[in-house]
């Protein structure tokens, strides 16, 4: 069913359906995805916070929805979540600003 919005919260529940039109690739993706978030050298809790930060830098509403809930389920506090979002924001703004050096280089090259 097409909705009138590009983003529909109910679509998040249908994410698994992507395997219907490409079973092998879909399943490989979900296997990989599941494996990535298992406890490893990083704890599942740390991974959840990384995912939340990236969800914001990617500005993905589905991911923000999913990893906010995931964080609450893990007992992650809202202060921890907000700090993670700031890490994402700092990298995003840093990435913009560091290009300022490019601008400076160009100005220095062109100006007498």
């Amino acid at each position, binding site marked *: 069913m097409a909705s009138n919005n590009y983003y529909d919260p109910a679509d998040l529940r249908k994410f698994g359906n992507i395997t219907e039109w490409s079973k092998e690739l879909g399943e490989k993706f979900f296997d990989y995805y599941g494996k990535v978030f298992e406890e490893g050298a990083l704890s599942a*809790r740390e991974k959840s916070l990384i995912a939340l930060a990236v969800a914001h830098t990617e500005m993905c509403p589905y991911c923000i929805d999913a990893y906010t809930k995931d964080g609450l389920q*893990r007992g992650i*506090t809202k202060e921890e979540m907000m700090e993670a979002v700031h890490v994402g924001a700092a990298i995003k703004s840093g990435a913009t600003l560091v290009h300022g050096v490019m601008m400076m280089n160009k100005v220095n090259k062109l100006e007498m």
Partner: protein
Amino acid sequence: MPKAKQKKQQSLHKRHSDLAMANKQLEKLSNGIFASGELPTFSEKIKETDQFPLRPNKLEILQINVGYMCNQVCEHCHVDAGPDRKEIMTRETMEQCLEVIRNTGAHTLDLTGGAPEMNPDFRWFVDEASKAGIKDFIVRSNLTIIRANKKYYDLPEFFKSHNVHVVSSMPHWTRGKTDKQRGEGVFDLSIKALQELNAVGYGMPDSDLRLDLVYNPSGAFLPGDQASMEKDFKKALLEDFGIHFHNLFAITNLPISRFLDYLIASENYEDYMYSLVEAYNPAAVKNVMCRNTISISWDGYLYDCDFNQMLELKVASKIQHISEYNEDILNNRKIIISQHCYGCTAGAGSSCQGAVAN
């Protein structure tokens, strides 16, 4: 000493809310997304794995609710307990319970409420019941009761002298999350009560005086992994307050009573039911608590679990009251289910003893 103040001072019953009525709750749980077929009903779901009808295994736990009166009015309470609830077990019903306790094959006796300590015959009952020689004798204490009034200050010593296993609620190791769910000031009182339980030996490493905590999510989400949560709770409570405890039971909030009211009011009901159904784990059905528990209400009626008690769904057996108790006949019953049962089968499963599937 801070005094516990509640956000909402009254139970749904006192407020004459529609959802105070069990039939209204059951109606909500059977209509909407379940009636339209958008989500499968619980019976349809357990049929998929040939687990319908659900039947009891060996009886292990007798859970007795000695009354719905409580000093707190927690937002998620499935009992709709509070200071305004007057349903209290009488000594006569307690006598009938004692007769059963002396003869049961169950190894665990579990007293709950409300705040069970507020029943005027609580100490007499614990005294008598502890003589029956049941292996594990649990009292579910909300902690703040220990600091609520002078007459309760000696509860830690009283529990100790009867070798009672104390199980207490603690939704988070931070003040904000705890007070939001359980009322302003509850966190500080709970911390003080835990320190007093520790002081008499409860919860200390290698101590036989068992002190376990119950974690309920403070909102419309499911509990995380019990072992990880326990690790985080232990670290935080020890570092911040020097508190020790033994185990953490992660319990899912079931969509009934005040939690159902909250889900509907916050427009989280459908999403929450989706989360429960998506997290359905057939392995949890095998060990779900209604299969090894009988729940007894303040007026002596018998139920498959404390949740069915609150939904007024008495056991489907010709034996429905403690006065006519017969374990063999009761064990032949079919367990009554509805959509709230998804709460006990999500993820690692949930029971009054925590997760049930590994």
